[in-house]
């Protein structure tokens, strides 16, 4: 590890994993596997508990703002672990001189999103720092929810087996491209809107009817590629993904072509990957597609006994290559 923290350590890629594993998890004695939410079992109750900080720049972008993001992100982290999100905390670090009017708009979005997701924001904290000591506004949310029995394996992936199918809940890359477009440092604008959304209701309708959800993750920093890479590690198998079946909207694909980004690595804020048993993936797809946030859900590949430890991509053009873990910063401060 190099001596100083670089932006790469916050990218959600390999360096970020190493930092967390080799420093924080070791010092704090955190158990493996590390998942989006911790699962706490005490006195017969199982709780999922998670936290996340939001430093998105700019604060407002098409499809949302930092406040909506801070609620959705934490709700989704809980929901993908199979829990029903209940209570959220919200802490604000505000730069001196920040317009109160903007803070009101952000708080309104948070209240609205919490309401939509059926969670309550019940505690929080406010700090103001001098001008230049932070960039406008940072928000940290933490959340907790009840884990339904029989779903403990969803975050650890213990039940993944060969033949399981890979499902994504919709088109990739919208959040990253929407935020990038809102930064005004591109010389063109785009029509792309962030996919920022609370997915707990959609996820719960899947879990209510299906018993073969073997793994679930939201596709945030590092995108689909980071989650697929994590998946090969925890399942000690290989994955085959068909590029042609991975949904990406045309404006996102176009901007990726121009800017040299790969949609597989771009951050999403309203998309999940589900690993589904082979007898149930069609049902899961159907439920997802009946939900507004999952209309474009697609089967993209499967778990295989071959290619152990690798994600093999069948490219659109009929070739084959590996899909590697994202490394380095594709876009900083995207969430």
């Amino acid at each position: 590890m190099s001596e100083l923290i670089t932006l790469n350590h916050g990218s959600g890629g390999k360096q970020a994993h190493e930092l967390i594993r080799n420093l924080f998890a070791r010092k704090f004695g955190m158990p493996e596997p590390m998942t989006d939410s911790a699962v706490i079992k005490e006195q017969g109750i199982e709780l999922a508990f998670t936290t996340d900080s939001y430093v998105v720049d700019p604060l407002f972008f098409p499809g949302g703002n930092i406040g909506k993001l801070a609620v959705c992100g934490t709700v989704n982290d809980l929901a993908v672990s199979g829990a029903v999100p209940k209570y959220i905390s919200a802490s604000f670090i505000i730069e001196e001189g920040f317009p109160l009017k903007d803070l009101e708009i952000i708080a309104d979005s948070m209240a609205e999103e919490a309401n939509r997701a059926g969670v309550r924001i019940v505690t929080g904290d406010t700090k103001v720092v001098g001008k230049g000591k932070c960039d406008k506004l940072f928000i940290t949310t933490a959340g907790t929810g009840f884990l339904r029995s029989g779903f403990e394996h969803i975050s650890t992936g213990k039940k993944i087996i060969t033949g399981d199918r890979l499902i994504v809940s919709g088109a990739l890359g919208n959040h990253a491209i929407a935020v990038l477009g809102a930064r005004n440092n591109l010389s063109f604008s785009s029509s792309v809107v962030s996919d920022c959304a609370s997915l707990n209701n959609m996820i719960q309708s899947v879990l209510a009817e299906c018993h073969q959800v073997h793994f679930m993750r939201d596709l945030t920093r590092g995108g689909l590629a980071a989650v697929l890479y994590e998946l090969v590690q925890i399942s000690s198998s290989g994955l085959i993904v068909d590029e042609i079946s991975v949904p990406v909207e045309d404006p996102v694909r176009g901007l990726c072509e121009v800017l040299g980004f790969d949609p597989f690595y771009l951050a999403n804020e309203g998309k999940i990957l589900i690993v589904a048993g082979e007898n149930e993936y069609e049902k899961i797809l159907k439920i997802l597609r009946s939900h507004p946030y999952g209309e474009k859900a697609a089967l993209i590949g499967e778990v295989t006994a071959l290619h152990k430890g690798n994600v093999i991509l069948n490219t659109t053009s009929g070739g084959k290559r590996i899909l590697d873990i994202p490394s380095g910063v594709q876009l900083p401060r995207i969430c």
Partner: protein
Amino acid sequence: MKYIEEYRDRDLIMKLADHIRQSAVGRYSFMEVCGGHTSAIHRFGIPSLLPPGIDLISGPGCPVCVTSADFIDRAVSYSKKENVIIATFGDLIRVPGSSSSLEKERSKGADIRIVFSGLEALNIARSNPEKIIIFPGIGFETTAPGTAVTIKQAKEAGLNNFLVLSAHKVMPPVMDAIVREGIRLNGFICPGHVATITGSGVFGFLPEKYDLGCVIAGFEPSDLLQSILMLLRQVNRKSPVVEIQYTRAVTLTGNAIAQRHLSDVFEFTDAEWRGFGTIPDSGLRLKKEFENFDAAKRLPVTISHHNDNPSCICGDILRGLKKPYDCSLFRKACTPENPVGACMVSAEGTCNSFFKYVPDE
């Protein structure tokens, strides 16, 4: 998506691959000189579609990769100066110099900003009149006209705080150097974007002097396969010429406006290439009338020359002599997050493309 999907059509690609298999009689070595081609070839999994007799060799066409450590050291040295903002393409910030990189300097507090174009750097200069903005100009005939236009605009606006550190290079001399070094090739997959600017004529010396086939290729999988097929047929016919596959962008004479901007602002100079040493007349420096924008003239820095890590074989890889697997550092000491050589840094670098897209042999 229009202009993309038709070139990625699976049926078309399978047909082209069939034609290649039928036409390939013996062994062929083709070099793609452009880093964009290297990346596209591996991203689309092109080698998995080719018969074993066809070897694609990556050449020196990734601008970041051929940038010398001395150039990075110079940029690092500027970044440590008071009142300097380095406005750079993102690829460059992680390239290791002899002891540091722009990324490391940024984490120590240097003001280093990533831009997508020279004009964006110019805007930083406009809004920070008390600072000096240095734009490291890297790239071939493709990006150099953009730098030329930026410098012209800086001159028109009377900006006194915008400087370019030019490491711009041109393609034909290094292709000549590769052939003279005796690498056994049957032909070149020529750089499509460079040729869009220069026209196809600049590659004429390759068939004339060296009997080497040239096909100027586009960047989609069907472009690449069609180009390989065209090269195969040239070799089989023993009639090397310059052919344009990328006809939707490339003409014989190229983009006259961009060429004029280039010749207005730049002149040829000897340039140092990582892996090759100095190649005469292969670089672009600012003409005298624009020297007010030349970082090398306005703000000279002295750096001490260091040799590259002796275990790193980037030089041999850039010359097409070796492949990433031949390097003892590849995937071990040298990875995209901790690159030893420049070929691992850029998305267009050969080692980076192999690392990302090619399974272990």
